């Protein structure tokens, strides 16, 4: 027996270093765990660097004075390496840029515009998507499949396809019967108002919210809704008092996605706001772009403004994340 074991050990030791290491990982749990841990750190490190590096770059640009950005020395030498590598490092530490952002233009008004647009759109989307999600997720009715498919199809349309007709409509041109020239009615002029942006945004982001909420609402046991209705709510009351609170993670997800998408939106709002001015409801990105004029581009201010603009979203995500987590742990849906 002992001899046999010895033989066996000999064969394991044989083979190249890679083979020995592989066999070790397969047979020894400790080595395997070490490998898994190492892989975990490598993967996490990779994702952290790729997501946070642009943000770091932004920060470096913001604190570097504009003149230094174009002429500065962006290469650094790292110890043993025989050559310099390009890596953005702060050339100077000019925190004043974050104040200048608001002095140059009323940037806070642009942030406010985007914030209002995003908030109102999110509320509208959540209200309508909740009703739609309830109907699609909890009721049986003929034509549910085709209707759901129609919503899906519309969500695949490129938003730009709606732009020209919407712009025409929002300009307030009279609606005319083709060829006859009979004026039907005069549409309200909505360009430069939040209405011209909130309406298309709500329509564009509804399908996604409907899908998220449909899946979440469908999972709430029928018994809870029945209980609420027997206890004294209407179907709508049960939706808002029982089904929505229990679907908090889904509602939070839909809300955060919609909010961020609208907050960052530029394409529609840059066109619906005829000029890049805050009183025309030009959004956050419009504000950032107005640090650039015909002759100069103030990169440091654009970078600083970008960072300022991100802060509200960061706050909201952190808050919502807490909600999502608490919703997941408190959800005692054991049925």
């Amino acid at each position: 027996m002992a001899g046999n074991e010895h033989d066996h050990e000999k064969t394991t030791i044989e083979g190249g270093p890679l083979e020995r290491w592989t066999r070790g990982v397969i047979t020894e749990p400790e080595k395997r765990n070490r490998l898994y841990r190492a892989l975990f750190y490598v993967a996490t490190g990779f994702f952290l660097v790729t997501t946070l590096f642009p943000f770091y770059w932004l920060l470096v640009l913001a604190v570097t004075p504009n003149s230094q950005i174009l002429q500065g020395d962006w290469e650094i030498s790292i110890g043993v390496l025989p050559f310099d590598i390009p890596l953005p490092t702060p050339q100077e530490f000019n925190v004043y840029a974050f104040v200048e952002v608001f002095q140059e233009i009323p940037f806070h008004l642009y942030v406010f515009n985007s914030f209002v647009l995003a908030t109102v759109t999110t509320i509208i989307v959540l209200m309508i998507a909740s009703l739609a999600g309830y109907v699609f997720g909890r009721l049986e009715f003929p034509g549910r499949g085709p209707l759901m498919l129609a919503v899906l199809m519309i969500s695949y349309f490129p938003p730009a396809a709606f732009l020209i007709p919407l712009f025409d409509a929002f300009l307030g041109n009279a609606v005319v019967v083709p060829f006859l020239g009979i004026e039907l009615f005069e549409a309200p002029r909505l360009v430069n108002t939040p209405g011209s942006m909130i309406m298309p945004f709500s329509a564009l982001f509804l399908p996604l919210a409907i899908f998220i909420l449909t899946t979440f609402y469908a999972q709430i046991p029928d018994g809870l809704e029945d209980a609420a209705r027997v206890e004294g709510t209407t179907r709508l009351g049960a939706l808002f008092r029982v089904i929505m609170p229990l679907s908090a993670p889904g509602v939070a997800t839909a809300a955060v996605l919609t909010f961020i998408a609208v907050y960052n939106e530029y394409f529609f709002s840059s066109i619906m706001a005829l000029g890049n001015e805050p009183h025309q409801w030009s959004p956050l990105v419009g504000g950032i772009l107005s640090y650039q004029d015909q002759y100069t581009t103030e990169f440091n201010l654009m970078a600083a403004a970008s960072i300022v603009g991100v802060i509200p979203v960061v706050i909201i995500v952190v808050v919502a994340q807490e909600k999502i987590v608490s919703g997941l742990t408190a959800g005692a849906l054991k049925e």
Partner: protein
Amino acid sequence: MARVTLDNVTKRYNDVVAVDDMNLEIEDGEFICLVGPSGCGKSTTMETVAGLTKPTSGTIHIGDTEVTNLPPKDRGVAMVFQNIALFPHMDVYDNISFGLRLRDFDTDEIDRRVEEAAEVVQLQGMLDRMPDELSGGQQQRVAIARAIVREPAVFLMDEPLANLDAKLRVHMRTELQRLHKQLDTTIIYVTHDQAEAMTMSDRIAVVNDGQLQQIDPPLVCYNEPANLFVAGFIGSPSMNFVEGELTTDGLETEYFDLEFDVDDLDAAPGDTVTMGIRPEDIYPATQAESLATASSTVDATSDVLEPMGDEIFVYLALDDANEETMSDEGASRASNQLLMSVDPDSRIEADDAVSVAFDRSKLHLFDTASGEAITHGVEAEPSAKRASATAEADSGGQHE
């Protein structure tokens, strides 16, 4: 408190008839059980009373109000669900007071009522817990408290004990009975467990295939089942059924003949009938001699013995053929088998030849084709010498 009346209530789902022309009259303060196998329409019946589903046709009254088209919240009913259905995001207090808060009661009144309800179901001191911190039985009590706190006219309970373990179920059964005595409210209780139905209810409504089979007090359902379904469904272990033909002087089956008076029966000789006898109404011939209403004896072989402690179930084979132990009909045993329950100190062994007699007064006859009961208990043949007329009268052979 109110009467509940269902008139010709029918509920169809596409092609499936879940409830078929149901007529029920439930008295004020009555505890009524709807029993039946799974999918027989008893839960649907209850949902139509609660207002969670609208009947396809028919009307429902609670008290003097027609509620057929009222939403659940306006019907004055409270319901306890099989899956308990506590709102997981609210604590016990909020769960119990949910209905009161919706009805804009003032805070003091809500406090008082919640305290009272918690006291009835013995939940004091747990009002600030979340549902997932409670045991199954406590959750069920919260659900009951939530129902009683609104002082509803009618209580609906949809298999409220089905998700509890066996011991707790028996305990909650007595609690519910106590509660009924205390509240004196109309209770409609759905269950597939006939032990619950037998022990708790004032009347049992047996439902099958969406149709009401019989509605009577538990013991009437047990002793005088209206048809084959009720006979087979009520009672555990279920009744023995043997098919046979009625003759001028009794019953002729494939395995044995019985003699009794057929003159007063609502069936003619030559009719195909099914004889039903409960396991506890079959006696070994030696014991049967002391029984005034014993029938003639039947020879059989004991097959399998199931000692239960307080009694022994003896499976009797009526012929030598290899029995198929399962039959296709609802009955749990083959047509050539009889189940007899005997005293635990009885000395019957497996494969003994056993001669048994039936208690004639507990013998049921059903029309095989329609399933309707013909009689419960038969009289001895007038010419029979064994039974004395006085003993007959004492034991009360019941004719329908």
